[in-house]
């Protein structure tokens, strides 16, 4: 298809007719600024094909504000050697005419012809929408939508497949998609998309389950019912048997027999108990008698024992008394021995004391001599001290005052020397006889004078000469001198000396006196360390003590000679005597005590014997014993009889086995009761079962079950049918989709070839894959290091635009091969491409323009420099 001429009138901004002619069969580039009418041209072409001429929804095509305009598009084009002329007018005198060579079509027929030929859909009513646009929608990209490829391909899908399929020698099937849709719909009535039962199928499955449950429940009930019927039969049978045979009667008869036997045994038991009691009493009496006899024997023995004891006590007393008497002289001797030893000790001690006093006296005498000597020397020293101290008091001089005097004297001496040196010296060599008076002094000799103050020298007969000494500080010096002299005088007075030398001598003497005193003090301390007074006291104490001792020893005791016996030996002898005395005394005491005890013992035993002997007489005791022995024998005979009787009876009782008989009674009673109870319970059970079964029977369980089974099997059949149908539909759908997929893959191959052709211009060895719907999905490129895969939708805007254009061109190639008309319109394409890509895309477009007519509208003419055709300016046409 090659457009040759476009004419537009009363359409949007074209109030006046616009004619674009001399269109080239290949690439046509239109440029112009925004709103110069590029898009209007594109819209006019779209309207000419897509919009129905009768449509009332295209008023937007009218020029602004011109409500009476009749927008008109006139297209002239050539296809397969035939010349087409299409005129379409909207809104006002709307019409559609097509002239193909000599053939003419108009109105709906003409529009349908166009739609079929180009491969798009006409809207039933209203404006044409994207979904109607089919193949032109794909090949004619609108401004700003070049990157979107999926939607247009989808809308063109059926047309593409049909068109392409025809080329593929009929592998496609007519209306196959409708068939698939029909199968899908029928499947949807039975199965969810995930393949689970739905709607009626699901409901049937649910019914089936619930019926299966209720049938199972009913079956169970029926089985229970049957069991109960059988049970009732069995119960009735047993009941009849019991009624006839009464099994409890036999138990009762046996029970009566056992009870009689038990009564007999119980009587025997009572007798046995009586005899046992009697025997027990007899035994007790026997014990009593035996005890009495024993007591009697015991008494006799006790009496004899006490008599013996009394005698023994008496004999012992006598022995002890004798011993006591024998011990007395020994004790006396021991006492005498002790007293003698004690006297000896006393004497020995006296002698020892006198010896010690004599020793003391000797020592004291020596001490007194020493003390006497020390005291005399100390007293001498003390006197020396006193005289030195007296002298010291007299000459005492203050060392500070002495120092001050020394200082003043030194300064005075210095001042006098200075005065002498600076005074006006006057040497007088008077001739003899002559005198002069100096001041008041008259001088008549030779010599020199020192003048210290203004002095008048009067030379008699001559007159006088006033001399004023010239030194400036002479006055000052003179004052100092007089001050110092005053001071010296004061100090000398104070110290009560007449000169410094005297003062110095006194100071010297004071120092030596103090040293002497110091030596005397040390000496005194050597004689009397604790002071003189203490020494004197010590001296008199020794004297006193000595005096006392002299008196004591002057009259010594007249001493018994003890033959040199020492105190220690005397004391040892006394100790031994003491021991002997203590032993004798203890012996004495012990014997005295023993005698007293023996006396008491003797009295007690005698009293006890008397007491016992007084109670019973021997005759009485003998008679009592005889009686008791007779009673003992009699009892023994009775005991024997009773024991025998008891033994015999017990054998009878044991032989009858009373515990077993009691168990029998228990057992038989229980058996009889139990079988009667069972009989009764069974009777009640029968009545209960009869009632229960008649109620159950009235429900018609088995009939219900039969009905439910019918329903179940119907439902089961229905379910099976639906399941088969679902499986069949699933299978059919699978198969159809497989086939369609296979077909699509066949269609993909040529598309892929064309895509790769264009792509190789952009990226060497790249591939753009397409899916079943022939939509580009993935761009595979050789990257720097690895193969890069990019999902179409994730590519950059620019890349998507480029891929979109490439895809469109590839579809166009396919359509061309299938003999279909191709016209490519690109409104403002590739505005997001960089220079390098744009250059490649120019090659792509140029290559495509060798096979297809391409109308390219742009507002950036410079971008398209080098595309190989000159741009036609919209502005030039619009005049």
């Amino acid at each position: 298809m090659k457009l040759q001429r476009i004419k537009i009138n009363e359409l949007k901004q074209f109030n006046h007719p616009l004619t674009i002619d001399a269109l080239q069969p290949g690439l046509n580039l239109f440029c112009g600024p925004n709103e110069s009418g590029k898009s209007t041209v594109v819209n006019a072409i779209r309207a000419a094909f897509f919009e129905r001429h009768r449509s009332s929804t295209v008023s937007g095509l009218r020029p602004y504000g011109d409500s009476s305009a009749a927008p008109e598009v006139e297209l002239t084009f050539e296809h397969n050697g035939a010349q087409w002329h299409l005129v379409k007018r909207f809104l006002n005198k709307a019409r559609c005419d097509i002239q193909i060579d000599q053939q003419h079509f108009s109105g709906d027929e003409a529009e349908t012809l166009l739609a079929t030929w180009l491969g798009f859909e006409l809207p039933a009513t209203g404006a044409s929408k994207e979904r109607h646009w089919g193949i032109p929608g794909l090949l004619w990209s609108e401004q700003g939508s070049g990157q979107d490829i999926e939607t247009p391909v989808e809308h063109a899908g059926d047309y593409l497949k049909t068109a392409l399929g025809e080329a593929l020698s009929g592998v496609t099937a007519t209306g196959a998609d409708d068939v698939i849709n029909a199968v899908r719909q029928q499947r949807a009535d039975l199965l969810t998309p995930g393949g689970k039962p739905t709607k009626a199928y699901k409901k049937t499955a649910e019914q089936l389950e619930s019926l299966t449950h209720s049938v199972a429940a009913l079956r169970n009930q029926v089985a229970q019912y049957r069991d109960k019927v059988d049970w009732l039969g069995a119960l009735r049978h047993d009941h009849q048997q019991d009624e006839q045979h009464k099994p409890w009667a036999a138990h009762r008869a046996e029970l009566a027999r056992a009870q009689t036997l038990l009564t007999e045994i119980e009587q025997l038991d009572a007798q046995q108990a009586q005899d046992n009691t009697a025997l027990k009493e007899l035994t007790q009496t026997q014990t009593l008698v035996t005890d009495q006899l024993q007591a009697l024997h015991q008494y006799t023995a006790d009496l004899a024992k006490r008599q013996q004891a009394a005698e023994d006590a008496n004999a012992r007393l006598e022995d002890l008394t004798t011993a006591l008497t024998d011990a007395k002289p020994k004790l006396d001797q021991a006492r005498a021995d002790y007293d003698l030893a004690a006297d000896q000790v006393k004497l020995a001690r006296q002698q020892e004391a006198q010896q010690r006093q004599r020793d003391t006296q000797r020592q004291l005498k020596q001490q007194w001599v020493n003390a006497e000597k020390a005291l005399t020397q100390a007293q001498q020293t003390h006197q020396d001290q006193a005289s030195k101290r007296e002298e010291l008091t007299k000459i005492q001089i203050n060392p500070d005052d002495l120092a001050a005097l020394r200082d003043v004297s030194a300064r005075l001496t210095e001042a006098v020397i200075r005065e002498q040196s600076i005074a006006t010296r006057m040497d007088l060599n008077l001739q003899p006889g002559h005198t002069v008076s100096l001041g008041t002094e008259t001088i008549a000799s030779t010599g020199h004078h020192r003048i210290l103050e203004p002095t008048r020298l009067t030379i008699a007969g001559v007159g006088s000469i006033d001399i004023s000494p010239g030194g400036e500080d002479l006055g000052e010096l003179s004052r100092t001198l007089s001050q110092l002299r005053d001071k010296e005088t004061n100090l000398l007075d104070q110290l009560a000396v007449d000169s410094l030398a005297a003062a110095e001598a006194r100071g010297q003497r004071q120092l030596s006196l103090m040293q002497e005193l110091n030596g005397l003090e040390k000496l005194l301390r050597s004689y009397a360390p604790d002071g003189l007074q203490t020494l004197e006291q010590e001296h008199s104490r020794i004297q006193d003590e000595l005096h006392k001792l002299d008196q004591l020893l002057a009259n010594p005791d007249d001493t018994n000679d003890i033959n040199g016996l020492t105190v220690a030996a005397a004391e040892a002898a006394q100790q031994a005597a003491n021991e002997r005395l203590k032993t004798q005394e203890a012996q004495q005491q012990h014997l005295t005590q023993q005698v007293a005890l023996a006396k008491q013992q003797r009295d007690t035993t005698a009293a006890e014997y008397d007491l016992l002997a007084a109670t019973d007489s021997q005759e009485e005791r003998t008679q009592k014993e005889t009686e008791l022995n007779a009673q003992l024998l009699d009892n023994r005979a009775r005991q024997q009889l009773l024991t025998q009787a008891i033994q015999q009876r017990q054998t009878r009782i044991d032989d009858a086995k009373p515990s077993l008989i009691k168990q029998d009674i228990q057992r038989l009673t229980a058996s009889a009761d139990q079988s009667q109870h069972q009989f009764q319970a069974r009777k009640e059970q029968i009545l209960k079962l009869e009632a229960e079964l008649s109620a159950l029977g009235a429900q018609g369980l088995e009939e219900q079950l039969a009905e439910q089974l019918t329903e179940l099997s119907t439902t089961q059949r229905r379910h099976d049918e639906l399941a088969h149908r679902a499986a069949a539909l699933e299978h059919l759908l699978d198969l159809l989709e497989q086939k369609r997929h296979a077909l699509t893959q066949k269609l993909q191959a040529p598309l892929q070839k064309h895509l790769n052709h264009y792509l190789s211009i952009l990226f060497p060895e790249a591939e753009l894959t397409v899916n079943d719907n022939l939509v580009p999905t993935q761009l595979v490129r050789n990257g720097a290091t690895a193969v890069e895969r990019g999902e179409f939708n994730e590519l950059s805007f620019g890349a998507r635009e480029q891929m979109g254009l490439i895809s469109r061109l590839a579809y166009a190639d396919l359509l061309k091969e299938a003999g279909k008309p191709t016209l490519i319109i690109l409104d403002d394409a590739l505005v997001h491409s960089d220079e390098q890509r744009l250059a490649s895309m120019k090659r792509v477009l140029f290559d495509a323009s060798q096979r297809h007519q391409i109308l390219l509208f742009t507002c950036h003419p410079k971008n398209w420099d080098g595309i190989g055709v000159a741009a036609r300016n919209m502005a030039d046409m619009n005049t």
Partner: protein
Amino acid sequence: MKFIHTADWQIGRQYDRFGPEDSPALAEARINTVRRIAELAAQEQVDAVLVAGDVFDTQTLKDRTLRQLFNALSAYTGPWIMIPGNHDAALAESVWTQAQRLGVIADNVYLAVTPEPINFVDQGFVVLPAPLTQRHTHDDLTQWFDLAESAPELIRLGIAHGCVQGILAEEIDSANPIAADRAERARLDYLALGDWHGLKQVNTRTWYSGTPEQDRFKSNNPGHLLLVEITAAKAEPQVTPLNVGAFQWHQIEHHLAVSSDVDTVVAQLTSITPKAVIAVKLTGQVDLSGEQTLSTALSEAEGHHRSVTVDLTGLKLVPTDDDINHLHADGYLSEVITELRTQQTHDNAPVARDALGILASILRDRQAEGRA
């Protein structure tokens, strides 16, 4: 004397192989048949009606069903002599005690639940019953007939329910045995038997009447009752089978190989007298046009008959090339048809067949739309 011998009414039987419409109708038909028996008995003025067991199909029936059955007897006021069979055995609690409690058993119904002779002296006969009081027994309950005394002038009639030894196939209820020569040994003039649902003569004096209303697809001659005439004791009975069944049951089983086989089946279907109960089971293969012919014939039969059930699971759908052309299936649709046709020879045959059927029907609909 003249009496009717019938058995195996199986009242309360449900037919789970039929749908919810047919099953109750067939159940009700059994009661209607009993009504016709009563009418026939009245009309023939028979002396008695002997029902040889299995009056009821189960032990627990709805009261309504019991009332309907006993009401159906009302047309005949003579003695009805019934024994319990294995389905309605006189257990401790049974359908019979239920009926007794309901008070629906009329005075002229003699229910024999104990093995004791029932004398009808005025009518000149005595009945020796062998009622089942257990569901199954392995004793011959008719044994006591041999020793049973009866007045010599009375016609001796035996009535029993069970399996005559050595006559019927082994698998048929070998429980409840009955000696084949019981009639002879017990000096019976006639032994009325139940349990076998087809009409069957054991010997001149021993018969199975079969069920009066057919209840299974077994062509053993069901749907009858026996009208028996015995002129005097020891006389040979005259037995006349009468058809009383409402529905005949037909089973058509056919293997389809060539297209004319379809015509045979259609002819067989159309030859059946309405109203019948029909079961069709077809195997083999059929082409699309044959299948259409068949389904038309089957749906017509459904209109004419009580019940038509069809089993085509063993039937393959094999479209011919003509079929495919006719469906205008081109491209891969035609490939799909071919593949489904092939698949029917494999494991998944029924699914492939159904899938093919669905596809063909969609394509046919599309054709129809195209034409419309």
